[in-house]
């Protein structure tokens, strides 16, 4: 047993002149070693704990299924949508799966409900449970909403507005377009006629003439050309009668007046024939009217005639009054004559 000298201290200037010697046996480890050991132990403890924790974590992680991250791309979304649709369709069409779902939703004895449903649907049951009851009791299975992204929706909308692209017509690509096969179109001429309307429609003229007038105007404008220069403008105006024609005729535009004779203007007593009395105040009055009209340069022959006719109508409306007056007048005249 070697005695390991741990440390020696010498105190030369003390009385003792002690040499301090510390002894340690072999069994016992040195301080440093001890410290190290302690450290190791501690670290070991820590590491153990850490390990345990790690393991626990890992275990936890392993239980949750780690999914790969799907990057959302347009293609991806489209594919997904298609796949989803297909899946949904399959599920919907597949009787078994449908019945299973329904049974699950109802709850209780799923197998029994399944069997009943199937039997009912296929029509092979003995009991024949009432369909109405079953359907009434069933919950409506909502369609799985197809999740389309907003970008996709916008694209679809834009596509709808796009014109349908036809393949370019080549020499060999002429196909007769079958009208009956077009979507959303109804062919009116395929069905047998009902023979309700046999007579062809007659064109009833519109009470509103604006449209037809405007159409006429448009046609006229399409055919006629506006005047190219001022000369053509002047020509147009002369034809319209806005400008004097050469040689200047003072009576330009007075064609109706030219046709009427002067007798119609001056000799207006012919219009008094038939209705006007031959003697009396009215005759006197009307003759004066005729004289006055005969001297009038500004009225047309027709206007003069109308003037006289107005008086005729007026006197006829006052006939009863006039008769009274005139008979009285006659009486007065007679009395005067008698007196004189």
């Amino acid at each position, binding site marked *: 047993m070697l005695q390991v000298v741990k440390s020696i201290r010498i105190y030369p200037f003390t009385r003792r002149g002690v040499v301090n010697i510390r002894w340690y046996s072999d069994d016992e480890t040195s301080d440093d070693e001890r410290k190290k050991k302690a450290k190791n132990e501690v670290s070991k403890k820590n590491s153990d704990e850490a390990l345990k924790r790690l393991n626990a974590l890992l275990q936890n992680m392993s239980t949750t299924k780690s999914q790969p991250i799907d990057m959302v791309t347009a293609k991806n979304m489209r594919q997904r949508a298609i796949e989803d649709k297909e899946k949904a369709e399959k599920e919907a069409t597949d009787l078994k799966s449908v019945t299973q779902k329904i049974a699950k939703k109802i709850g209780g004895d799923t197998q029994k409900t399944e069997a009943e449903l199937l039997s009912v649907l296929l029509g092979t049951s003995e009991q024949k449970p009432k369909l109405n009851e079953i359907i009434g009791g069933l919950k409506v299975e909502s369609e799985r909403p197809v999740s389309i992204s907003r970008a996709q929706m916008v694209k679809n909308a834009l596509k709808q507005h796009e014109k349908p692209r036809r393949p370019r017509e080549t020499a060999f690509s002429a196909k007769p377009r079958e009208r009956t096969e077009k979507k959303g179109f109804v062919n009116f001429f395929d069905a047998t006629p009902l023979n309700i309307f046999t007579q062809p429609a007659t064109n009833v003229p519109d009470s509103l003439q604006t449209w037809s007038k405007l159409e006429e105007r448009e046609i006229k404008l399409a055919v006629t050309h506006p005047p190219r220069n001022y000369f053509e403008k002047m020509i147009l105006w002369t034809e319209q009668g806005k400008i004097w024609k050469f040689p200047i005729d003072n009576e330009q535009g007075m064609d109706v007046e030219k046709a009427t004779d002067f007798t119609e203007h001056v000799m207006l007593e012919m219009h008094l024939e038939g209705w006007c009395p031959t003697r009396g*105040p*009215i005759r006197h*009055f009307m003759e004066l009217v005729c004289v006055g009209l005969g001297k009038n340069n500004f009225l047309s022959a027709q206007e003069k005639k109308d*003037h006289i006719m107005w008086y005729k109508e007026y006197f006829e409306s006052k006939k009863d*009054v*006039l008769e009274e*007056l005139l008979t009285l007048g006659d009486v007065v005249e007679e009395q005067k004559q008698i007196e004189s």
Partner: protein
Amino acid sequence: MSFISSLSSTANSLIRSSASKLFGFTQKRSGAGWTDWRMIKDNKRRLLVKEHAVDRLRLNTLRKNNILPVELREIASQELHNNFPRDACLNRVVYRCMLTSRPRGTVIKFRTSRIMFRHLADYNKLSGIQRAMW
């Protein structure tokens, strides 16, 4: 009439036209519309005058004579009084200036007030009008 035609022709057409009853106000001295309400009312009166002129004349001839019996004349005057609106009378029409709507001091031949007449004449807008000098 040639004097008047030398002025704004649109104003003339508006005054003469019987069918159009435009109530578009314009600035004074433009002559392209109605300067004020008085002008519009005067225009209404003129239209009525034109409408009833012939009938009124014929009735007046019945009144203004000493040949027909008195009773008939009285009946005619009653009809004139009752059967026609007051504005159908020519006396009610005012010869306003067509530019400024001035009721007094109008030169009837040019349908303008004396002030506008002077203004236009000085700027040589009136055909044949010249400053008097003798």
